């Protein structure tokens, strides 16, 4: 079946089995291997992508469901000039990354949160990231990374506001 969708801002059309998992389509067909498989059962969040801006498990998402929809993967969040997204910068600065396997999913869940709620409370951060397991960090540095990113994004948008 020919499936058309938007991936990281680009229109994509490809021939895929509609019952194929989206994680496999992304990794095997599009070479977007930043999306990771940690459990294949929707229990770890390593495969998190954004579907129309909302985080979902790409291991539980069938290709037939993404027709005409918009997908964002970790490869799609850096700036056009290749500069890191403020969330990526903040994660590095705050030590939110150790082995890095949960990181793409963690960053995408964070992006979904901050896109909706620019100044989240601690409990809101924990709720938003509760579907992303991490075994390395103990999560403290991840929370710091999210808070830092939120701060930078707010300042950044403020600055942009000044310019315009």
């Amino acid at each position, binding site marked *: 079946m020919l499936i058309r969708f938007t991936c990281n801002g680009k229109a994509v059309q490809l021939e895929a089995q509609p019952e194929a998992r989206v994680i496999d389509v992304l990794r095997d067909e599009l070479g977007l291997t930043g999306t990771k498989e940690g459990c294949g059962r929707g229990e770890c969040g390593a495969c998190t992508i954004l579907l129309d801006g909302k985080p979902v498990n790409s291991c539980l998402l069938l290709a037939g469901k993404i027709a005409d929809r918009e997908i964002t993967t970790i490869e799609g969040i850096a700036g056009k000039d290749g500069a*890191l997204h403020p969330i990526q910068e903040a994660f590095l600065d705050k030590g939110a990354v150790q082995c890095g396997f949960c990181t793409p999913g963690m960053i995408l869940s964070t992006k979904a949160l901050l896109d909706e709620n620019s100044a989240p409370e601690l409990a809101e951060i924990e709720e938003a990231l509760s579907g992303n397991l991490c075994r390395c*960090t103990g999560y403290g540095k991840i929370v710091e990374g999210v808070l830092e990113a939120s701060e930078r994004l707010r300042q950044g948008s403020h600055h942009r506001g000044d310019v315009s």
Partner: protein
Amino acid sequence: MKVIGKQVRKVDGFELVTGRAKFAGDYQFPGMVYGAVKRAGVPAGRITGIDIEGARNTPGVIDVLTARDIPGPNLIGVLPPYDQPLLAADEIRYAGESVVLIIAETAEIARFAANLVSVSIDPYDPILTVDDALAPDARKIHEGGNITLSKKLLKGKGKAALEKADVVVEGVYETSFQDHAYLEPETVCAVPGRRITLYASCQSPFHIRGHVAANLNVPAASVIVVQAVTGGSFGGKDDVATEIGSLACIAAQRLNRPVLIAHERKESIIGSNLRHAARISSKTGAMNDGRIIAREITVLLDGGAYASESPFVTMKTLIHAAGPYNIENVEVTSTSVFTNKTYCGAFRGFGVPQVTFASESQIDELADKLGMDRLEIRRINGLKAGDSNPTGQVYAQSVGLQETIQVIAAQPAPPAHPDGGRYLYGTGYASVAQGISNGAEGIDVAGASVQMSQDGSVLVGIGLTELGQGSRTVWAQIVAEVLGVAIENVSVRLVDTDAVHDSGPTVASRSTTVGGMAVLKAANEVKKSLISMAALMMQTDEENIELRDGFAILKMDDSARIPVSSVATAAYWTGFPLMNLAFSKAPEANFDDDTHQGDIYIAYNYGTHRMDVQVDAMTGKVKVLNHFAAHDVGRVINPLGLAGQIEGASLIGFGMAHMERINYAGGIIQNANFADYALPSIKDRIPTNSIPVEDHNPTGPFGAKGAGEPPVAAAAAVFANAISDAVQFRFTKLPITREDILNAIQQRGNHG
């Protein structure tokens, strides 16, 4: 110091946050095929037949391999004689044991076909407990019997001295199997050739290379193992990586096609090593003034079906069982036993969390019996420089335990809470010492290379692996500091067995210390060349020159400076060596094999934790209100990385103490998934406040000591003590689940 002690971003972080890092499963090669294994499914028995027809006839299946197809000895392990087959030939020793390897065009087909394989097994009564394994008439799981290793430690008069004690406390403590639960399941990818290349998610590439070569029946040098970016290991990606790495290589050479084997989560739990379950019987004798005069401890480890790292874990428990205390008489027996369960091996902490839980629980019981303050009893007995530790080893310096106790004592007291409400409140303390380096477990050498290019950038090579713990960043910092260059100008090679030196295994919190010393030595040699060259260029003596801020600088006149790139270029053309390969060798452990008295480790990391908890008496739910974790790390190299190590290790300890337990029924794991095997989520995190204490360690680079493991033990023990304090009930088994807590509250309510 310009770089040491400064907060530094992870040097390999860019690839990780952008999704560009190549983990083993991200390699794609033309013609690649996929492997999956058929597992035994029963915990013990003898294979009487294997029917592979259904699998072979499945469209898309390319090859089906059994034990007969292994060119070499079909054995892996850590210590010879190796005992674990890649594919079981006759005996089945645990339910997760691999029997048949299927290679197919896709992973799905391979798994589907694996389900079609029928293995006929004449079952034995499985041996599922250490008691059954040790029964006099027990069936022998291995030819040599059911004991992997049993060792004894004797200091002073040992248990005989308990008679002299004013008070003796006695208890039996148990811990459960714990899964590593790294987010990336074990994955390898083999590419055939005259020299075969294996990209592996792994911890010790040289160990894998040896086993791959042996099982392929080729020389080690014709195998190249490249460590792919590895999604966590914590001790877990050693044995299993040799298993699937060897299988992938054998299949790849047979088929002349690249082969990828990736475990599913379930396989990662049932088919790779776990943390040993332990039963620890302990007696502690003290005088009325609180001085501990004797401890007698018996450690029994359930090691599962194969030896793996059990001998080393046994040694580690033996040496650490009596805790970080100055005790004249100690007697410990540690025994690891085979059972028909998933084999156990290395897991962050390596036996120390189990014995520390027992030891620290008993220290609290002793304090209570003596009517002493629980932190005070640790202070009275805690090791100081010049004291003799349980193996009789005396360190003249870098014994920072007392300072960690002081730091913990100085933290603000938890707020007082009224009695009688729905919530119970408690505070716990725990101290730990954990040996750094291989010590008694083997010779400890690391090799590292440092190479400067003409532009002044530096490439570091070392055979130890980055697993997320931040070692590459630490090594880069050391080199940047020594050569006076920006850390951005230092890169650390991937671990490729063709390109770096065998540095031994990445274990035992040894990367910063033993690895760091090798890096430091090599960097110092390159520094010598640069200084000599700069001295020639500036027409001055070498001692007048320093390397700083990317320049060779004349000490007495800061403005006289040459960019290090110019110095490097000149050195290159002059023929001064800009590369050095250096080795660091930890002083050899020197001890009596019968008593285990002697010098074991190059250093210990010491720590003391405090935890304040709130317990819901209606549900057993726990909220950790405060967690202070003070560790003597010698010298902080990267505060950011260190805090991450202490916080992450603490949550693994917390998981072990509160939530995580492998549930067996009839030798089959019942919760081999992340829904029922509950590792902590972000909503379960604990508010760890890491507090480094710096007591300079002469055996580490810039005085540093390893820090990756010790918080696991302290956090597990402190949780048990805090909960026991809150509930006023001594818990003796880990994990202490919500259910256990509620049961205890109700028991206490009924009796008290």
